[in-house]
């Protein structure tokens, strides 16, 4: 121990590593049975040295060891000795930082007791001049005091005034935000727990001097303290006691008049927090001034957040005045009378600008309390309603309804809405609006039902009725029923889309809370409008039906309504099926639902959705039936009777008619959506797949060809027998199929069909990141230079990387994480490498493929390769293919947000190119011109001013031509782009 201490004392203060190792050795010794006393004894001579620096250094060792010292070393007597030692030493100025450090550790020990707390705080107050210390030490002191307050509050309270005075002295003049945050929280505790009556003034001074907080954190602030943190902490102090009210109120009111927005806002927020604590007595003398300032803030609001906080402050003041007591109520009445009178004055012309803010003021007053709500409503509502009835001006009427809607919102806030669980609180009150219920009902209804009325007014009527329904215990079920009938009428008969859509939205909302009434009133009306058996469906009525179905779907999200609806809809569907239109042969003039390709596609979609949601066993049964139907022509599982016919059902047969073949879509939809384990249970997948591939290649029906290619891909993708899969892929795909499509002797149509299938099989393998998939991709890239298949194979990259309807996660496809990235990383180096040495046509194919890849990968993946890809992108801009041009510009558009530095590097070549793309030529289609203008328009937002500035004059001049483009849509982009460049002045908006 002796040795360790000596070597510590001779170590230089800079070699922290050495110091740390000595300290941990000492701590180790203590853990191994050595006594703390031996350390103190060894340190003895240094602690009593004449040299202050040596004393400090010795103290530091002791303090450092204490932070890691085992609990059991500090028994009662050790604690006594150490506390005494540290406290006495505090007069030794040089050692103070090290002593404070040690004291903080001492607090952690279980043997540190209340009497120690008193001793320590007394010693600190008596000996330490806190504000003369460094920030970090001051922080330690404040932390010690804070810990003492939390852990030994009871003992410190005995010190009473002495502690308060000491604390005030310690923090007085503090400037560091970290320390202040801590001090504010301690002071709040002192205010709440101590008797501060004799120290009100000094406590107030030591806190209010920071108001308003003007702190701005440095740009790369490591501590993360915001001005708001400080504001909130200070506000909690100021609003912690009503003792402050007399001192604070005049100052806060004064600051309201400040020209600084920050001070104003802070004052309002503080007033809002303080009003309920300070109480009405403190507020009353200032009411007039407060109202003047706050009113001004609301009426001339330039900033929504200021308006809101001013309104909330008025609410808080009103609430404070609403306490019981005759005198207070009198004050409340007077205060509200001033407000109501002034607002009503402005509301004489409710169509003018000031009406809205005044309406809001009344709303927030009404929200404050039950008496306030009663006063406001009874003083104003009658007025508004008679004004509404006597006015002919639609905009004025609308203004009035706007205010009534604000009132309903206030009532909902005060007395609850239908969604709240009823509480005891609102049972004693009578909602002040009840007296005016009939009037409100009448006013809103007449606004809504006026057929030739101003639309905005009708929309207000709609909203008012809806909002009233949502009030708690306001309208009876009968009244709600009447409103729903209005809504029904609007939805069914109204021509104006805005009104219909709002009505539907509100109805959906009401259905959520009032299912029963909607079920009784609305649903039967809607359902009755749908056709019944034998109804002759008139031409042109389809859009009407779809509107009704759409409306039904909006309200049927609610379970009760859904349950009631499903049987109704199924009945209607049965009606459709019972009609003699189910012939799949589509002979002559017998229109059949199965002959309409649109319907077949929808049915396939439904089959796919249902299959995906089935369990393994359900799928197995279902698939069995599908196979029976499609491969054996067994129609016995169909729930509807097919008409007598001598044509067998066999969509997969070569000789079947085209309408039957189209039904392959349904087959693919079912089989392509099965779970992997269901597919594994199928017998002989190899044979089945080979058969599908055979039909796919031989059919002359394009829909069947596409559908079966996708089905084959789905099966290959989910196939879990690796050896068979490899055999199939090598023999069929990379073998026969590849031969067929590369063979020059084959017909072009056969080569194209083979390629299409090959692309899908490749997709199946690439999705599961199978190695053979990349071999296939290599073959596809080789085809880019083929004079016949080049373009199709480049487009094929799009098929492979795009999302598909059939091979997706919902359909249980085997899709590996990051497969797109792997595909991208496989293709891009090949494309970049071969691009240079190829002819123009092939170059174009490479660029097409690249553009498909870029459009489908996450942007971060592309960023790494951007520098090497950028020349290709620039080359694509000169391509003769408008689509490639447009999609490349879109890529640049995205890059300009995500990697503006790369755009900056090439800016001098990009800008002239993009400008030339804005000109009307055959290759620059509308799409290209618009994309180019949009892209140019982002630069002012994304590229630094100094890089872009040299081009400003040129761009503005060149864009003049685009302003005269013959297409209006292009002109719009040109205007936006050019104006952006005009506003691009290097100043931050």
């Amino acid at each position, binding site marked *: 121990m002796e040795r360790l201490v000596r070597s510590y004392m001779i170590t230089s203060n800079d070699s922290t590593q050495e110091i740390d190792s000595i300290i941990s050795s000492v701590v180790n010794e203590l853990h191994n049975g050595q006594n703390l006393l031996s350390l103190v004894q060894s340190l003895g001579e240094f602690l009593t040295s004449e040299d202050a620096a040596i004393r400090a250094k010795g103290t530091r060792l002791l303090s450092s060891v204490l932070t890691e010292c085992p609990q059991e070393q500090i028994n009662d007597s050790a604690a006594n000795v150490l506390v005494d030692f540290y406290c006495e030493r505090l007069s030794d100025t040089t050692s103070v930082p090290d002593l404070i450090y040690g004291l903080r550790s001492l607090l952690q020990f279980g043997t540190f007791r209340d009497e120690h707390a008193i001793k320590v705080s007394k010693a600190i107050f008596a000996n330490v001049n806190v504000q003369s210390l460094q920030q970090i030490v001051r922080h330690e002191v404040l932390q010690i005091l804070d810990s003492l307050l939390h852990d030994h509050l009871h003992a410190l309270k005995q010190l009473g005034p002495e502690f308060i005075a000491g604390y005030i002295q310690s923090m007085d003049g503090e400037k560091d935000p970290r320390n202040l945050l801590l001090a504010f929280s301690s002071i709040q505790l002192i205010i709440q727990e101590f008797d501060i009556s004799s120290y009100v003034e000094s406590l107030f001074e030591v806190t209010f001097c920071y108001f308003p907080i003007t702190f701005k954190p440095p740009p790369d602030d490591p501590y993360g303290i915001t001005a708001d943190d400080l504001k909130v902490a200070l506000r909690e102090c100021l609003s912690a006691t009503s003792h402050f009210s007399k001192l604070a109120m005049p100052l806060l009111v004064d600051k309201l008049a400040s020209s600084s927005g920050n001070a104003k806002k802070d004052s309002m927020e503080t007033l809002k927090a303080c009003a309920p604590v300070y109480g009405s007595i403190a507020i009353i003398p200032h009411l007039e001034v407060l109202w003047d300032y706050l009113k001004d803030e609301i009426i001339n609001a330039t900033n929504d957040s200021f308006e809101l906080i001013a309104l909330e402050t008025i609410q808080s003041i009103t609430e404070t005045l609403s306490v019981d007591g005759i005198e207070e109520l009198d004050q409340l009445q007077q205060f509200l009378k001033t407000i109501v009178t002034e607002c009503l004055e402005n509301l004489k012309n409710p169509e003018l600008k000031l009406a809205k803010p005044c309406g809001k003021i009344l709303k927030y007053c009404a929200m404050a309390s039950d008496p306030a709500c009663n006063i406001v409503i009874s003083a104003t509502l009658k007025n508004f309603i008679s004004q509404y009835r006597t006015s002919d001006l639609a905009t004025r009427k609308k203004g009035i309804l706007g205010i009534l809607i604000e009132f309903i919102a206030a009532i909902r806030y005060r007395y609850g809405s239908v969604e709240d669980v009823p509480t005891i609180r609102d049972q004693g009150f009578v909602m002040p609006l009840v007296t005016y219920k009939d009037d409100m009902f009448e006013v809103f209804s007449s606004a809504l039902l006026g057929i030739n009325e101003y639309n905005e007014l009708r929309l207000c009527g709609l909203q008012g009725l809806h909002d009233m329904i949502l009030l708690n215990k306001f309208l009876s079920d009968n009244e709600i029923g009447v409103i729903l009938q209005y809504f029904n009428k609007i939805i069914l008969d109204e021509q104006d889309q805005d009104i219909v859509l709002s009505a539907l939205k509100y109805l959906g909302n009401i259905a959520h809370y009032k299912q029963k009434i909607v079920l009784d009133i609305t649903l039967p009306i809607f359902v009755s409008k749908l056709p019944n058996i034998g109804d002759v469906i008139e031409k042109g009525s389809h859009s009407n039906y779809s509107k009704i179905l759409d409306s039904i779907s909006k309200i049927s999200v609610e379970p009760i309504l859904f349950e009631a609806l499903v049987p109704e809809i199924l009945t209607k569907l049965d009606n459709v099926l019972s009609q003699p239109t189910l012939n799949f042969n589509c002979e002559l003039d017998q229109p059949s639902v199965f002959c309409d390709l649109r319907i077949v596609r929808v049915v396939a979609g439904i089959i796919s959705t249902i299959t995906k949601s089935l369990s393994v066993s359900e799928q197995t049964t279902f698939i069995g039936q599908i196979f029976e139907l499609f491969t054996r022509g067994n129609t016995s599982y169909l729930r509807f009777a097919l008409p007598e016919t001598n044509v067998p059902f066999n969509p997969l047969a070569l000789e079947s008619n085209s309408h039957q073949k189209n039904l392959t879509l349904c087959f693919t939809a079912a089989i392509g959506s099965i779970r992997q384990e269901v597919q594994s249970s199928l017998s002989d997948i190899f044979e089945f797949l080979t058969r599908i591939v055979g039909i796919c290649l031989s059919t002359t029906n394009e829909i069947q060809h596409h559908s079966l290619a996708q089905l084959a891909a789905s099966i290959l993708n989910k196939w879990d027998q690796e050896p068979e899969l490899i055999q199939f892929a090598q023999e069929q795909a990379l073998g026969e199929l590849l031969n067929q499509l590369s063979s020059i002797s084959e017909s072009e149509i056969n080569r194209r069909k083979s390629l299409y299938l090959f692309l899908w099989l490749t997709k199946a393998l690439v999705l599961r990141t199978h190695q053979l998939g990349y071999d296939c991709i290599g073959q596809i890239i080789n085809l880019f230079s083929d004079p016949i298949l080049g373009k199709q194979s480049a487009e094929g990259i799009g098929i492979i990387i795009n999302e598909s309807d059939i091979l997706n996660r919902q359909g249980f496809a085997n899709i590996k994480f990051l497969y797109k990235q792997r595909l991208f990383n496989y293709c891009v180096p090949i494309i970049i490498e071969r691009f240079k040495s190829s002819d123009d046509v092939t170059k174009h194919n490479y660029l097409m493929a690249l553009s498909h890849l870029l459009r489908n990968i996450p942007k971060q993946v592309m960023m790494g390769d951007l520098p090497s890809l950028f020349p290709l992108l620039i080359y694509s801009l000169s391509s003769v293919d408008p689509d490639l041009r447009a999609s490349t510009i879109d890529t640049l558009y995205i890059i300009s947000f995500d990697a503006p530095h790369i755009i900056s590097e090439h800016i001098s070549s990009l800008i002239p190119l993009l400008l030339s793309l804005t000109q009307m030529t055959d290759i620059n289609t509308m799409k290209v011109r618009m994309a180019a203008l949009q892209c140019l328009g982002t630069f002012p937002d994304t590229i630094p001013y100094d890089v872009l500035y040299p081009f400003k004059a040129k761009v503005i001049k060149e864009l003049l031509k685009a302003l005269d483009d013959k297409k209006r849509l292009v002109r719009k982009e040109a205007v*936006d782009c050019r104006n952006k460049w005009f506003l691009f002045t290097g100043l931050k908006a």
Partner: protein
Amino acid sequence: MPELINANPTIYTPSKVSHRIITEKEEQEDFEDTIDSQEVFDLIRSISDPEHPLTLEELNVTQLDHIKVDDAKAYISIEFTPTIPHCSMATLIGLCIRVRLLRSLPERFKVDIMVRKGTHQSEQAVNKQLNDKERVAAALENNHLLEVVNQCLSSAHKRGNISR
């Protein structure tokens, strides 16, 4: 806060019908869309008022019916209505409209911008200023003024699609 010239103007809810719906012809490559009054109205309707955070359309300063466009003759006339007859902002509002159109219309157009007859005390003086090229150019050399104009124009691209 300085006194506002018109502290409590009437607010109009913009008609929803006034939005152009893209037609099939507008999407066809070869069809030529002429510049019409709706297009010009769209350019200026959402310029902000210098006094209020409201657009010229919301204050009924600009109206579709008060814009005449003849694309073939490359002539446009625009009338605007100050919110009150003694509004000293009228020239500034007119200047904003002028600058917006200078930046947004092809050069071939001649554009007359007038205060609507009988809606302003010094109608002629304002009209004269707004239609004198040199005076407009001189005004824009004043940096402070240009900043105010740019501020008013920063909402112009919204073309009536403003949610309040």
